[in-house]
């Protein structure tokens, strides 16, 4: 999809929503929705995007929207999609619809994981979009299973004894690929065409499709609001957030940085990793680098790029 062409399409998430300055969720959603050619039913799990876009009596959504609870957006949209299929099969409806469930990393990796897994396994014709900002930002930056190792969050604080989050992040995209659904992709807003192309594939897929998109959160990352998109590029250049897709089981790498940058390029501009640069935490940065390297080798191997 050409940017020029995409820019001409009507906004599906209008301005006037109350997301923070520099929040990646709005950017990601607007890019994804540009790839939809049908009226949509949008579902949101409880979280930043939900509380900021539909405050009664207002809505920033041009499409029908449903919020049910935190952990059940996938189940909720699977109910909507089933209603559509039923009414269509009965000849009570002939219009085409797109169905998209959106959750943050909390609603997708953690509390909504079961609901997501169930909906994908059942094969509903829907897109699931996770905007991953790496913590429960809506409730004030608590760690999630998507939080990177070492990050300082309000429930994995960097203290005198414990230097931030102790665990590596969970690879949700891989887990979704292991569901053997037709389309799974990991994307990033610094490559808008790649993101929109993936969203288009996701909407056009018959059956379930899963998109995991990195979304900067200046509040939680302790980073500059105006540098969010640049940070998502650094995430790809350091191979912290590789861009790839799994189409009918085929892994494909979508971005191979010309020169792989050290992980410190990703860690340094973010206040949540500040404590890692203390002399006593030097080994931790090395460990994180090793983990990223291993992960990158795995991705390259899976994508046949060795």
């Amino acid at each position, binding site marked *: 999809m050409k940017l020029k062409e995409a820019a001409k399409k009507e906004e599906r998430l209008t301005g006037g929503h109350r997301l923070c300055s520099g929040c990646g969720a709005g950017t990601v959603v607007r890019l994804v929705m540009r790839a939809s050619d049908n*009226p949509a039913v949008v579902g949101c799990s409880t979280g930043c995007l939900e509380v900021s876009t539909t405050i009664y009596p207002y*809505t920033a959504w041009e499409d029908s929207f*449903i919020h*049910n609870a935190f952990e*059940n957006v996938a189940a909720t949209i699977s*109910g909507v999609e089933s209603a559509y299929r*039923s009414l269509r099969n009965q000849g009570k409806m002939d219009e085409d619809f797109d169905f998209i469930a959106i959750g943050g990393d909390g609603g997708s990796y953690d509390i909504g994981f079961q609901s997501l897994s169930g909906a994908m396994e*059942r094969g509903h014709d829907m897109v699931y979009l996770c905007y991953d900002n790496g913590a429960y930002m809506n409730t004030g930056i608590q760690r999630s299973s998507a939080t990177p190792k070492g990050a300082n969050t309000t429930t994995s604080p960097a203290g005198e004894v414990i230097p931030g989050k102790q665990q590596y992040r969970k690879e949700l995209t891989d887990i979704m690929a292991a569901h053997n659904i037709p389309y799974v992709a990991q994307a990033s807003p610094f490559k808008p065409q790649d993101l929109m192309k993936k969203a288009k594939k996701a909407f056009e897929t018959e059956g379930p499709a899963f998109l995991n998109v990195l979304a900067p959160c200046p509040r939680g990352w302790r980073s500059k609001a105006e540098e969010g998109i640049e940070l998502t590029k650094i995430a790809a250049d350091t191979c912290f957030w590789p861009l790839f897709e799994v189409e009918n089981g085929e892994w494909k790498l979508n971005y191979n940085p010309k020169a792989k940058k050290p992980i410190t390029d990703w860690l340094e501009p973010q206040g949540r990793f500040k404590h890692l640069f203390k002399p006593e935490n030097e080994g931790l940065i090395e460990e994180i680098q090793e983990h990223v390297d291993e992960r990158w080798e795995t991705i390259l191997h899976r994508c046949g790029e060795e």
Partner: protein
Amino acid sequence: MSNQVALTGNEVMAQAMRQINPDVVAAYPITPQTAMVQLFSQFVADGKVDTEYVTVESEHSAMSATVGASAAGSRAMTATAANGLALMWEVLYIASGTRLPIVMPVVNRALSGPINIHCDHSDAMGARDSGWIQFFAENGQEAYDNAIQAVRISEHEDVRLPSIVNLDGFIISHAVENLEILADEDVEEFVGDYQADNYLLNSEDPIAVGPLDLQDFYFEHKMQQAVAASNVKDVVLEVAKEYEEISGREYGLFEEYKLDDAEVAVVALGSTTGTAKAAVDNLREQGVKAGLLKIRLYRPFPAEEIANALKDLDAVAILDRADTFSTTGGPVYIDTRAALYDSDADLEVVNYVYGLGGRDIKVEEIESVFEDLQQIAETGNVEQKINYLGVRE
């Protein structure tokens, strides 16, 4: 044309669901509801219904998907029991607060722990303040009739609230009963086509369901819900009248069994009311003026009508198949005492918690309750307000 059939409670509820022919059913199997959804999925597999059956991975997702399907504009149902209902708890409030006319059979079973699969009402009672309409049934026939009427009641424009149709686990769900089911076309005509006013699958007029509702509107929306709940009684009676025309069976908010001239009575719900009728009959033969009030509509609670029906008694015992652990008695006892407070009644009200975890209740035990009541009526002395019936000390 109705049919005389011999079916279990689960089987007849599956038949009711087949005849209602909902657009979507999202359900998760749980003992003792399992046979109901198994049978229904067979109807789906055999093309007997137009339903999309969503084989969700939990009851939380069952209720969540049902909410999605109902908000989308379709007629949606689910069914559950016990821990399944407890797992739905969060979404029960969302379904009623979003004013979705979902109908859900609940096969009553004790809540864990300790784990137990048999009948009591602790599951339904946990949902008593969730904003769902709740019906109780003495037998499979009533559960079937309640299910079909619940569709009309929930979808009524003055109501738009979801309904739980309770039936006692095993005692009703697994016992074969001789009962009458209506002709398919009669049910089809009675429930009619469902057309929501505002729904997600309307691209001409998109809507936002479940937005963040803060201090300036939430209370008004809850007030509207309270008004809807207060409309339920009239609608229940109106629908019952129409249902009587096609079924020949009469329904009210509750049934008064030999209560007219009674001096002592018990109040109960569910299958125990059948046992209580036998006890009443035995006592009547002995010349005791015994009666029974069998609650059909438990939520919203028809307080005024129940108080009115009980006010001339000398003493009444409330049988509760669930405890509240509040030390103030079972839920039906608390509701009934509160209802009587505003009436001009002058009678003693006592409570018997019984049958927890499927403990059998016998005719003789209910007769012993009547003996206690007679004693109270004669002496005016109540030794103990809250009693536990049929339990080893």
